[in-house]
């Protein structure tokens, strides 16, 4: 790897009781690049995600996040909400977790909680209606509106998030994560359940997040058309360990990867092999 690293995972191990979900996993993600984490079901990908985003405390190993200004943060030492707040790592979930009873716009406002909280003087200034807070709120709405345009949900802004179609919910979740203005965006199977057209739109969205905003992306995905098309770097996991890594082309031709997928699921193996050709 040549570029500047944003995330460095070193010897990550996660055990649940006697079960080793992830063992001595090391990989890195580069800044302004899309790194994909793939592997058959049960390979431990989501566990890695949960360790990076602080929902699990890793049993061993180190996870370093390096900001553009050179600041280094040890993620394994932070609580979940601090990782989002201080380390600026945002994530989405495999089974979408929106605030279904709140509107689309409100979902995006909640994402800007910490900024708005400071602007409202931890509620006191906001309670008396100070102008500084009004300005901040207006800026927050502008940012949200901007993202609604990007994910093509502007006309649904005042609808309940729970009423959106599945594909729209997926995009809204990404927009919500981006409203926290993250340095690293972690997406857990963003293309799951999308049709071909939605999937293509997702590709475009992710590429624009990388190219226009310079946000680094770490991605778990089963949909090979997404992975192979947009990833800059791919890490392949099976049974909790890394079995291969490299560019999409390298990974596709790696016999170990094919073997892992053949052992797990024939359809997926075919998808891996066919995706590039």
């Amino acid at each position: 790897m040549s570029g500047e690293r944003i995330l460095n995972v070193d010897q990550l191990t996660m055990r649940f009781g006697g079960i080793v979900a992830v063992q001595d996993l090391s990989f890195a993600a580069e800044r302004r690049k899309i790194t994909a984490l793939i592997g058959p079901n049960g390979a431990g990908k989501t566990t890695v995600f949960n360790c990076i985003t602080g929902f699990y405390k890793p049993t061993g190993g180190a996870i370093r996040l390096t900001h553009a200004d050179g600041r280094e943060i040890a993620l394994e030492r932070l609580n979940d909400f601090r990782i989002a707040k201080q380390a600026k790592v945002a994530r989405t979930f495999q089974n979408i977790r929106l605030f279904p009873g709140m509107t689309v716009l409100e979902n995006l406002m909640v994402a800007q909680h910490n900024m708005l909280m400071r602007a409202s003087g931890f509620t006191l200034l906001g309670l008396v209606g100070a102008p500084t807070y009004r300005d901040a709120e207006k800026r927050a709405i502008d940012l949200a509106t901007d993202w609604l345009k990007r994910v093509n949900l502007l006309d649904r802004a005042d609808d309940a998030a729970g009423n959106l179609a599945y594909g729209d919910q997926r995009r809204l979740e990404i927009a919500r994560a981006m409203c926290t203005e993250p340095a690293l965006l972690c997406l857990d199977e963003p293309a799951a359940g999308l049709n071909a057209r939605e999937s293509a739109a997702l590709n475009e969205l992710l590429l624009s997040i990388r190219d226009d905003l310079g946000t680094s992306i770490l991605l778990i995905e089963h949909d090979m058309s997404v992975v192979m098309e947009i990833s800059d770097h791919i890490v392949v996991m099976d049974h909790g360990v890394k079995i291969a890594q490299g560019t999409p082309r390298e990974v596709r031709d790696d016999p170990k990867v094919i073997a892992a997928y053949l052992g797990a699921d024939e359809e997926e193996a075919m998808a891996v092999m066919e995706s590039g050709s």
Partner: protein
Amino acid sequence: MTAPSTQTTKTASGIPALLKTAFINAVIALVLFSLMVGIRTEAGSEGQLTYWTRFGELASLVAAVFGGSIVIELLRQWIGPAGTEKLVPPALQKGMSLVGRYLAPALLIFTLLVPVIFYNQRYILDLAILVLTYVMLGWGLNVVVGLAGLLDLGYVAFYAVGAYSYALLATNFGWSFWICLPLAGILAAFWGVLLGFPVLRLRGDYLAIVTLAFGEIIRLVLINWQSLTGGPNGVSGIPRPTLFGIPLNNSDDGLAAKLGIEFSPTHRIVFLFYLILALALLTNWVTIRLRGLPIGRAWEALREDEVACRALGINTTTTKLTAFATGAMFGGFAGAFFATRQGFISPESFTFQESALVLAIVVLGGMGSQLGVALAALTMIGGFELFRGLETYRMLVFGWAMVLIMIWRPRGLVGHRAPTVYLKKAQAISSDLVKEGHG
């Protein structure tokens, strides 16, 4: 008692099936009531137990169940299969939401005029003060349960802390109501934080049971710490509130004498009425303001999905704590008011029943809806008052009301959530989408 009439006979429509259902229900009722109603026990003067039979009552109860089953079954067939689920048709609901827009201002104006309209009806004024106290408690608990989705079964503890704070500070140090009122709120909030800090990571029913236990602990301590609280005898001689130092009594310094009007005890009642109204409206205003601020939005997000909140960098512990403390503070204010109104407080006023009543008001109101809570308080306390003459049957009726209301409208009277921010148009969100929280 109404009938155990849930004998669901979907295919049954004919008279024989109807009678069969009613007969089965009657037999069940006969077994249930046979010993509990048919035999009455009583401890005699020397501690020995005697009993006598009451077969007449038993027979009439069983007959009532039989008749009731038939009536309910007929009603059910009339209304249709969905009868129990949606008694309110959508058209009517739409009309209700239209009424809802003008209902709140109309209610407020009416409430402001209550002392004018009912000036000479002391009973109605007292009842209005009681209703407003519960409106305020409901609005306070609504922050915790309705917005943040934290199930608090010990809310009465904060009400008690507020009441005893004022009572003890006023009787021991002679501090005035207006100094003690904020102190009572702060102390209650402090206790809220003290309890909340360790327990708020518990989820769902565990939190419910811990708050219940906390409420009971506070009550037991109030009963047993006799040197401070006076134990079961309570605290009496709590000073009445003053209009910023001017007492509302018949003395030369009193308000009546200063204004040069004739003294009347109603002055104080009217003053208390406006005092609790002001406190309740303050609660309402603060809550509405907070909902539109990041903290309030975080509360609601917490109710919707706690994991997502953490992924967005929200400190869920402090967010829960602020909700808990805010709710507790309003409970404390209401408690201080209660103490000054009654002039006497004892642990008996702060039982689990009170917590359950306030929670019922919040849930019946439609979680999170301010107007709903006010209406629910009016219905519950007003309805409760209607049965005052029945004395012992009152709690029986109240219990049945809780059960039936939950079956009728599990999501409460107002089934919509208003968004806190919008781009083009604020659309009400159906409560079917709104979560209740896990905490």
